[in-house]
């Protein structure tokens, strides 16, 4: 049966539209650029829907596989395929792109075409990362995402945007370059193949595995970001424009978690086991210590950035306790964090567009002038704190359950986030939203308009639906999680 190369479409439709948008040129055609970008983003989302419809959750391995020769000399193939985990991330990515395009509709007035095009191209590239089954293809997509994000932060960012964009780029480049050396080593170890599937079956000594693990760790831990290599993230988040922060938090951080899942765990299982304690330690430091750091932030975006790091600690914790609940919890946490952190950054963006300040101290009593907004913000703040009934609860709770099977103290420490998370989120919420009207500017605030309402509304629905009925998400990934766990439990040490 002939079928469309859906994965290729998911990658190239946004990129193609991005190029088209870029071609509209200067700001005189800004409206055309916006409309075209919206069409591209929506089409990009539409082509990913059949992926979900036609996906068979019970099948193991990869689906929608497409394999073309790309660089024969190096034995590199254009090899795509997805399992349940990649499917979810692709959907999240394409969905977020639509949100971001709509969210930037009026706010961005400078170089609109370049702004929209950057996001579309970025979206296509990240879809590429999630479907690549060839290591070099994976790497190319993984690295390419740096360019649009660098531009986004640098052009439309805040006052210290140059510093933040440079730091972002160099920090992440350092990590990924070392992983490139590891990939080349694996190429020779697997007798001249770059296919991830061949890497999965390549026997490796423990020393080699540990070195490869650390090379991958450099790439993915920076991206996640794990403590102590997280310092680029608060800078990048604070300086990035709202759309940039949303994509950064919702998708780009997931590239790191996904990298651990797709590369580190199955390729170097013995090293993963050997170093699991180390990874869990770092994750728990992120959860607890960064949670405390978030508590003392005075800048809303910075607070959410630290909260992201803390929540991503759950993802890495879930991955390295090696049981099904932990891993499923980690994936759910990735998806849910995509919605929640995206929504929170949008909320801060809504305030910032009106007041041009992100300092918590400049606000107070916003509920008096923006009641509808306050309601939405409330929902997302609660979700961030892990309130049952929201998606934030499902992920965190599952990871804690998984951790409990492994070690009581892991679970205990991880569970402190339910306290710290609630503390820093709700305290910020209280200071910004409640109380007396702080100043003249707050008194003049206008509530959200229809566009903002729709954006936040869609996200609110997503957060609630996933909170009360996580099955559609959990179902598609059972088999994939099982596959990865099977790989992790098989020792690859040579006989």
């Amino acid at each position: 049966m002939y079928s469309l190369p859906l994965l290729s479409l998911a990658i190239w439709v946004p990129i193609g539209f991005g190029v088209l948008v870029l071609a509209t040129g200067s700001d005189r055609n800004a409206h055309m650029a916006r409309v075209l970008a919206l069409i591209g983003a929506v089409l990009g989302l539409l082509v990913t829907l059949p992926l979900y419809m036609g996906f068979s959750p019970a099948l193991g391995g990869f689906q929608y596989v497409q394999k073309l020769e790309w660089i024969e000399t190096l034995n590199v193939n254009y090899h795509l395929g997805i399992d349940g985990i990649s499917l979810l991330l692709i959907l999240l990515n394409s969905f977020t792109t639509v949100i971001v395009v709509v969210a930037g509709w009026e706010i961005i007035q400078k170089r609109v075409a370049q702004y929209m095009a950057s996001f579309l191209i970025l979206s296509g590239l990240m879809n590429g990362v999630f479907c690549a089954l060839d290591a070099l293809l994976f790497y190319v997509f993984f690295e390419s995402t740096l360019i649009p994000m660098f531009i986004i932060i640098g052009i439309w960012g805040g006052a210290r945007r140059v510093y933040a964009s440079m730091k972002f780029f160099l920090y992440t480049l350092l990590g990924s370059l070392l992983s490139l050396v590891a990939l080349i080593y694996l190429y020779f170890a697997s007798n001249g193949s770059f296919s991830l599937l061949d890497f999965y079956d390549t026997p490796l000594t423990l020393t080699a595995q540990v070195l490869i693990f650390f090379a991958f760790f450099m790439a993915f831990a920076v991206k996640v970001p794990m403590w102590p290599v997280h310092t680029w993230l608060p800078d990048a988040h604070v300086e990035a424009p709202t759309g940039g922060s949303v994509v950064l938090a919702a998708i780009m951080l997931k590239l790191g978690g996904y990298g651990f899942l797709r590369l580190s765990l199955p390729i170097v299982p013995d090293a993963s086991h050997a170093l699991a304690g180390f990874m869990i330690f770092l994750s728990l430091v992120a959860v607890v210590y960064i949670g405390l750091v978030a508590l003392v932030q005075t800048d809303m975006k910075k607070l959410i950035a630290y909260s992201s790091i803390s929540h991503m600690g759950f993802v890495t914790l879930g991955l390295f306790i090696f049981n099904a609940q932990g891993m499923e919890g980690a994936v759910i946490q990735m998806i849910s964090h995509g919605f929640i952190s995206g929504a929170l950054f949008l909320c801060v963006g809504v305030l910032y567009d009106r007041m041009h300040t992100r300092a918590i101290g400049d606000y107070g009593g916003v509920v008096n002038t923006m009641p509808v907004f306050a309601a939405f913000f409330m929902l997302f703040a609660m979700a961030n704190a892990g309130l049952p009934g929201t998606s934030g609860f499902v992920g965190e709770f599952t990871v804690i359950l998984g951790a409990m099977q492994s070690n009581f103290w892991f679970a205990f420490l991880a569970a402190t986030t339910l306290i710290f998370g609630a503390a820093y989120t709700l305290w910020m919420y209280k200071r910004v939203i409640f109380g007396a009207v702080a100043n003249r500017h707050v008194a003049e605030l206008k509530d959200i308009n229809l566009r903002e309402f729709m954006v936040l509304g869609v996200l609110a629905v997503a957060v609630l639906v996933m909170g009360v009925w996580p099955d559609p998400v959990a179902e598609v990934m059972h088999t994939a999680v099982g596959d990865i766990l099977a790989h992790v439990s098989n020792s690859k040490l040579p006989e």
Partner: protein
Amino acid sequence: MQYILPLWPAHAEIFLLAMACVILIADLFVRDENRGITHMLTQLTLAGCAVITWFSANDDPTHTFSGMFVGDLMADVLKLTTYFVVMTILVYAREYITLRGMFRGEFFALVLFATLGLMVMISANHLLTLYLGLELLSLSLYAMVALQRDSAQATEAAMKYFVLGALASGMLLYGMSMVYGAAGSLEITRIAALIADDGAKNVVLVFGLVFLVAGIGFKLGAAPFHMWLPDVYHGAPTAVTLFIGTVPKLAAFAFVIRLLVQALGTEEIQGHWQQMLAVMAVLSLIVGNITAIAQTNLKRMLAYSTISHMGFLLIGILAGGLNGYASGMFYVIVYVLMSLGAFGMILLLSRRNFEAENLDDFKGLNQRRPWYAFLMLLLMFSMAGVPPTVGFYAKFAVLQAIVEAGHAWLAVIAVIFSLIGAFYYLRVVKLMYFDDAQDAAPIVPRADVQVLLSVNGIAVLAFGIFPQPLLALCVSAIIASL
């Protein structure tokens, strides 16, 4: 007569030499306002060479002129690249040299003679032929650097270039005489056979090798023999820098392959020069990348970036084996493509009495001309080695070769320094995209410059998305020639 037959491997050289003489004479009868005719004739000559080389290309190496000259696939590929790059240089440079009074017959004659030198070097199968080509190239380049007679800076650069270049040539000659002493022949393919037979003369050979490698280091611009490079790049008129910074690297690559790999490629000697190249490569990466950060002049920055690129190239060559040499060839072609575009951008922004050579001159280019800013962005990311541009695959191929050769530590060093290198390329992107324009002068390039520069920039992306053809070409060229 039978000693010089067959002639066809050298047809392109003979044609070029004849045409250079014709152009030199014809130019005497052309008035200044019709100087375009000389330009046109030069371009036609190069196109003619391309046609000749294209049709005389064959897979098996053919020796001629009593074994002094060779035609093989590597030579053909490098020569064809040379023609196209030189033709592009002439297009990019036209406006610039016209405004600076250099749009004269001498310029074109020198370009043609330099090109001839490159071709002879690329096809040399004899140490003297190699030297002959090198000197023809160097002498033409010294004159080209000094062509702008009223510029003190250019004269100083020419002087430095000449003195250090002569020193390097002397070293090369001395090294060659040692090789002759040990092997008893100057013919490259015979040296290989002679030294393989007799291992006892290795001390003399290694002694000579030191001088050869030092000479090569000078010509490539690899540290610690790089001192001339930033001053010459900076001091020379940009149109000449464009030439010096691009095509000679192709010939230098052929030079290294012929001399070190084909003549001195026995296992023991190879081990010696690989060590020397490794030291030079690491030093080049360190000096090039770190010093480039401190530069405020784009030409100087690109000069230091060249040094670091040469470090990468040397790593490819010292990795050895088919993949190593092929990755080196791929790297050098890619480097020339990127360098061509980057210097082309400087020429594009320059105008009468204004050299756009400072980094600050690129500020806000995205506001002034987004398309050219985008092209420069591609070029810079490519130089930094960020996918999906072709610069990534160049670095990747080299890294792969060196890991295969078992020197993973060199790969790690190369990777760390390319990270440091990324910083100064990013700074150019930052200036173009994140800063506001200081200079509002309109940029109105000629149509041919617009087209070629666009092709040049897009090629960096296109070869990045489809690197296979170029990569396969390099591999087959190396297979056919070794």
